[in-house]
């Protein structure tokens, strides 16, 4: 930098190169500090949880039901409850969310009404989850008579993630180039044929990414499920959508609320399991997404 290139007539510029490069370096280190801070906090959390919980992890822990005696306690019902919950939530929010997104992007006219709907969907994404819990309690548990069941919980969580599913699916659909739609219409395809054969396949990886993020949020939700009356002590696995249930975050919440230190360590163990389940879920969704992408680009 200190070496200047030869040549005359440069006096009209004052490049101050050293200073500009210094600013650039400072910015780079600030960004590095941001990521280092985030990673450090994450590692600290993971280490803290691992130190407390790792020694409780065993096959027994995964296959036993909750117990008042820490040494006999397990999280089988919570794991199964969480899996049921995720499956049903996905089954409900995916078709509803993608359908709504397709309608908004491909069918609806852009007018004041759709603008209002759009704004409200964005606002709903910011509503505290406990509010969805109250709604779920009133509608699903009481009015529709689902009771304190897996179905009521999943329906509540589906409502909770729906705005995010819709918005991310809309983004993915909007990213499909207009030229592709024109190509399909140009050979005499109807709107549905264009959407079905060309828009959706191209948008699907993006839609799935939104779905992964939404379910990752849903699996950690506690408040709305407590609100609708998920139980904290379940000594049997749910076998149908109408069974009562518990989920991992509630089990964790319940154990951390107890005075005994052993239960706090059990909670740490359950947190590790929750993280692993989350990772597995995301990994499988990413595999699915990549397979979709590969098939599209073949």
């Amino acid at each position, binding site marked *: 930098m200190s070496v200047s290139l030869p040549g005359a007539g440069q006096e009209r510029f004052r490049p101050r190169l050293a200073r500009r490069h210094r600013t650039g370096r400072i910015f780079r280190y600030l960004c590095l500090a941001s990521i280092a801070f985030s990673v450090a906090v994450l590692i600290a959390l993971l280490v803290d949880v691992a130190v407390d919980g790792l020694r409780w992890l065993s096959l027994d822990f995964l296959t036993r039901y909750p117990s008042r005696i820490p040494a006999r306690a397990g999280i089988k019902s919570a794991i199964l409850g969480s899996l049921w919950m995720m499956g049903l939530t996905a089954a409900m929010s995916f078709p509803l969310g993608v359908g709504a997104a397709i309608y908004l992007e491909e069918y609806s*006219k*852009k007018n004041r009404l759709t603008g209002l709907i759009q704004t409200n969907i964005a606002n709903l994404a910011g509503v505290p989850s406990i509010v969805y819990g109250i709604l779920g309690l009133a509608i699903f548990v009481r009015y529709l008579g689902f009771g304190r069941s897996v179905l009521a919980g999943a329906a509540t969580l589906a409502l909770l993630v729906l705005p995010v599913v819709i918005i991310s699916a809309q983004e993915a659909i909007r990213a499909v*180039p207009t*030229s*592709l*739609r*024109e*190509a*399909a*219409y*140009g*050979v*005499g*395809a*109807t709107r549905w*044929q264009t959407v079905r*054969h*060309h828009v959706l*396949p*191209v948008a699907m990886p993006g839609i799935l990414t939104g779905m992964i993020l939404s379910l990752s949020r849903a699996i950690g939700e506690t408040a709305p499920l407590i609100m609708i009356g998920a139980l904290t002590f379940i000594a049997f696995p749910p076998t149908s959508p109408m069974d009562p249930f518990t989920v991992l975050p509630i089990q964790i919440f319940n154990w951390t609320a107890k005075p005994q230190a052993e239960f706090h360590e059990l909670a740490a163990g359950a947190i590790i399991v929750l993280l692993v389940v989350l990772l597995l879920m995301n990994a499988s969704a990413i595999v699915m997404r990549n397979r979709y992408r590969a098939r*599209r*680009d*073949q």
Partner: protein
Amino acid sequence: MSDIALRTEELSVWYGSTQAVKEITLDVPKNQVVAFIGPSGCGKSTLLRCFNRMNDLIPVARVGGKVLFGGANLYDEAVDPVEVRRRIGMVFQKPNPFPKTIYENVAFGLRINGFTGNLDEQVERSLRAAAIWDEVKDRLQDSALGLSGGQQQRLCIARALAVEPEILLMDEPASALDPIATSRIEDLIAELKTDYTIVIVTHNMQQAARVSDLTAFLYLGELIEYGVTQRLFTNPTEERTEQYITGRFG
């Protein structure tokens, strides 16, 4: 009348409150190549997109006047734009193959339109007609995205031809291609003329002079002059046409 493929009567297009095409009346004769020329924004693409109701896809676009195709007005309530687009095919400015196999690109239009003939034969026939068969016959199951720009554009022409349209609309089909690929497309247009009526938009006057039988010069949404290409380029009657083709504006 029977040798007219398409006729517009006082055709106008508005985008919101701006009028992009102003009361244009012209005939497109059968088995001829008609070129639309004019400076950017003169409405030539907009006019072309009226011929297969592509403007329907733009929410703010409004169309007035008539486009007559075999006696029927394409903008009549009873006319289905899906039917129109099969009968009047289109090739776009940028090659836009589907992100699927070469075979699927051509077969898609056949499948969705309930083609009753032999699919393989029709795909081959279309690819041959678009002069790309020899280059792709050994890799029909490969992705169309692996083709070069010029090949992709000829594939798009094959895709349009597959559904047996009567008219082929081409919106600056060579503007994104290199000179060699461009000349292949131009040769192809000359060959296709025997079986199809072609309307081509181009910003390249040499291209219009090379490929077309008739040329229409548009300026600010108005049809300034329309006539036999050779005459229009050598002896234009309108002053603005002369100014444009001699490069004094545009």
